[in-house]
């Protein structure tokens, strides 16, 4: 058998980019940079949606930095005359609330907590979902049945009432805990759909090859399966984060979530009961927090859609200009 003779010549089954002796550490790093940072960045930047999304998001991060380093005055009652309209005074560009709080500083100083909250909520939801989905999908059998039963139960619990009950019981004020709490059951649905993706991937030949070679489960999941799930996971991370924004604002508005400092949702609540819905002189009090919420949500949606392209190998290769063959076919899909 010819194959048996080849075996004896100690052919390396490992890929070229692996641990071949003549690849230096520097080369490995630069390849890593090329594959994981530069190319995705080029691809991402090439998409208008991602570009706009990133710019908006950078703006919010900028606001958070301003708040964290106290570069703009903190909101405080009676720091300004009451209910100044927007753009009437340069000292208070967005106007003031009925308690004489500068609306701009209120919006800026709410940003860090909101960002922390959405990141915590997004990470929590996707991390648990990836863990549960891949484990259940890859291992199958009893593990699959147990994990899927648990996620079915979690999915069956109505999300919003659960969040309200937990918020009332634990009264958490830490934005990270709040983010996790809001997305406490978000992972279940996502975990289930990830599992079905894993079920198809696990049958792919390269996964089978790894298994045949005796590579351990954690390594297969980490190296072979999860990278293939990344597009889906990233998009869902962004959607989970957006859900946190909406859910938290809604719950703050209803007065269900505890808070110790004002944020956009609480401000909306104050503005609503302060008559901002019915009179022009207070309308800005309602309008600017809403614009802040919409902006962040828009950024996340654009980013979520744009990120899809980063993980699309065809688009990626074409834009990184390493393959001529894909250009012609991809041009036909332009515009999507």
């Amino acid at each position, binding site marked *: 058998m010819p194959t048996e003779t080849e075996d004896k010549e100690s052919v390396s089954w490992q890929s070229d980019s692996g641990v071949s002796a003549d690849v230096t550490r520097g080369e490995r790093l630069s390849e890593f940079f090329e594959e994981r940072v530069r190319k995705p960045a080029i691809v991402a930047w090439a998409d208008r949606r991602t570009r706009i999304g990133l710019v908006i998001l950078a703006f919010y991060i900028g606001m958070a930095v301003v708040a964290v380093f106290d570069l703009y005055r903190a909101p405080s009652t*009676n720091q300004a005359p009451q209910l100044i309209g927007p753009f009437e005074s340069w000292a208070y560009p967005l106007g003031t609330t009925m*308690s004489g709080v500068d609306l701009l500083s209120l919006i800026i100083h709410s940003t860090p907590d909101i960002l922390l909250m959405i990141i915590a909520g997004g990470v929590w939801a996707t991390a648990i979902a990836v863990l549960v989905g891949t484990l259940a999908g890859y291992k199958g059998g009893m593990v699959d049945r147990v994990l899927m039963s648990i996620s079915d139960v979690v999915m069956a619990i109505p999300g919003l009432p659960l969040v309200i009950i937990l918020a009332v019981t634990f009264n958490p004020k830490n934005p990270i805990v709040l983010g996790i709490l809001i997305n406490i059951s978000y992972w279940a649905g996502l975990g289930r759909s990830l599992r079905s993706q894993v079920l198809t991937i696990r049958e792919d030949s390269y996964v089978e090859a790894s298994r045949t070679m005796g590579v351990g489960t954690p390594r297969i999941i980490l190296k072979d399966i999860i990278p293939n799930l990344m597009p889906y996971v990233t998009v869902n991370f962004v959607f989970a984060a957006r859900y946190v924004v909406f859910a938290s604002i809604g719950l703050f508005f209803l007065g269900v979530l505890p808070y110790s400092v*004002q944020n956009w949702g609480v401000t909306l609540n*104050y503005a609503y009961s302060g008559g901002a819905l*019915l009179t022009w002189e207070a309308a800005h009090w309602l309008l600017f927090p809403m614009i802040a919420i919409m902006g962040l949500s828009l950024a996340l949606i654009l980013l979520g859609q744009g990120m899809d392209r980063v993980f699309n190998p065809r688009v990626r290769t074409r834009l990184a200009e390493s393959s001529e063959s894909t250009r012609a076919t991809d041009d036909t899909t332009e515009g999507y």
Partner: protein
Amino acid sequence: MAMTRDRRSGNIYVDRRRLIQGAGAVGVSALAGCTGGDNTDADDDSEESGDGSENSDGGSGSDVREATMVSATNNGVPTDMHLNPIATQNYDDIVGAHVFERFVAYNFETQEFEMAGLEDWAVDSEMFTLTIREDLNWENGEPVTAQDLVTQFRLEKKTSGAIWDFAESVEEGDNEKTVVFQLTEETNPQLLKYSIGSQSDRIYAYHPVYEEFLDQDASAVQQFEWEEDVVANGSFSIESKSDQAWTLTRNDEYYNADKVNFTELQILQREDNTALQQGMSGGELDAMSSMFAPPNIANSMPDHVQEINTPAKWGYGIVFNHENEHFGKQRVRKAIAHVLNREQIAQNAGPRTKAVPDVVTAIAVDDQESWLGDQMDRYETYGPGTAQTDTAAELLREAGYSKNDGVWEDEDGNSISAQYATPSGWTDWTTATDTVVDQLNSFGFDLEIDSKPIGDFFGDYIESNFELGAFYWLPGGARSSFPFYPLRWELVCPDIDGGHGFPTGEKTIPAMDGSGEMTINPLEEIKEITSLSSDDEATEIIRRVAWHHNQTLPFIAITEKQEQTWISGRKFNVPETDDPALGVKWATQWLPRVGKFTAAGN
């Protein structure tokens, strides 16, 4: 009863009556002319009145118009609500106020009681005698008698009505219009009067309906939902109710019926405050007994909408956990009172609707001058409109605190850190809380707002599981006008089961005249008022206990709420803004019965 049943069993009777009225209108309109008529630009109300014609019921001889007054309730869906005042759950008091006559009416303007369903009340030694108006009748024409009232008070004995703190028994007097209470001991007449004199104290127990509950447990009458055949003795009778609204019709048998010149009252069900505001400004509603509107909304109301402010004898204050290491100290509490700029807090939380007390003690804003009199200047004001930070700093230093890096620390280096509790749904309160915490933190405290749902909020206070926080400093209602009630209330605070842990025993405080000290047992002294029959003797005690509160601060009084009642002159004639009748709560119910809210002509 029969008449009521007729009205409710179908519309035929009503329609026929309207038909007759309509026909009669042709004849009488020439004679009737216009009543009031100072509102010549009022719109025609044809959509409500059907034919918009003027009518007379012929009975009272006055001019009754086919017009509908539209008001609203936010108590709940009418079909779920009932009109048995003793069963407080699901009782719609806004409707009940139109249907049942009150004993007396407390006028917050003149600070006096006006007789209503009662003709007279008298206290003589250990007897309290009520005389019912001679012409007070049920809507079926039967007179309201002592038997009805005796039944009512006996039922209220089962449910611990306020009068039973002082009374031993109740009997019919010399005739069928007098009721006599035998008191347990000689009692301060003021306490007796306030115990039946609040807005919600109504004459409702029609004996044939309520007698069956006399020999049953309290729970029986408290579960009785009076929805069918409600027998009215007030200015309006129940016509019908639906999911959306209550419909009431003018009660011809009412003794002041000739003052009510319109035929129908509709009370819509509206939960949302914004919807109420829009209803009032858009002309859908003619009157709202109580509706909060911030200044910008109030200013945007059309000119014909009139806002009536009456003191709620209730409002935002600060309660301390007196067992806390910091706030248990009198000097710390005094320092807080000095730091706070109460006028600024009121300005933020609602400048039109929040009054600031001059003296920090448990006496309502309007009553302080009359009770404290010429001694009012002696009481500490704690600077209502300024932050007296120097005085506060001195007090904290005396208490062993020192300021490091802008933060006050005790001898062990601990800052005055605490969670400031506030109920999350009450927006005007949370605004006040924001301001209080900002003011105290900028002085060097380390407070954090702890907003909680209302159930947790009360629960934590009851279990003394708090450090300091927002709480009302007056118990509310006309009763709070008599300082006995709020002074005692702040000491024992039954609403939170005494969870603030204020020590009520004998204590030594600075003397009132400014030299030396005095000892006082506030709770014992205030209890003495119950048996004093003269106001002069009571005044002396009230001043001493008020001084105790002023010096020891069981609570800090920040603002007193002003109720906002609204009436619209679009279709109705409304009184001048300085009319003393506006001082009776609720004006929406009181004004029609005294003829000061009448349907406008043409």
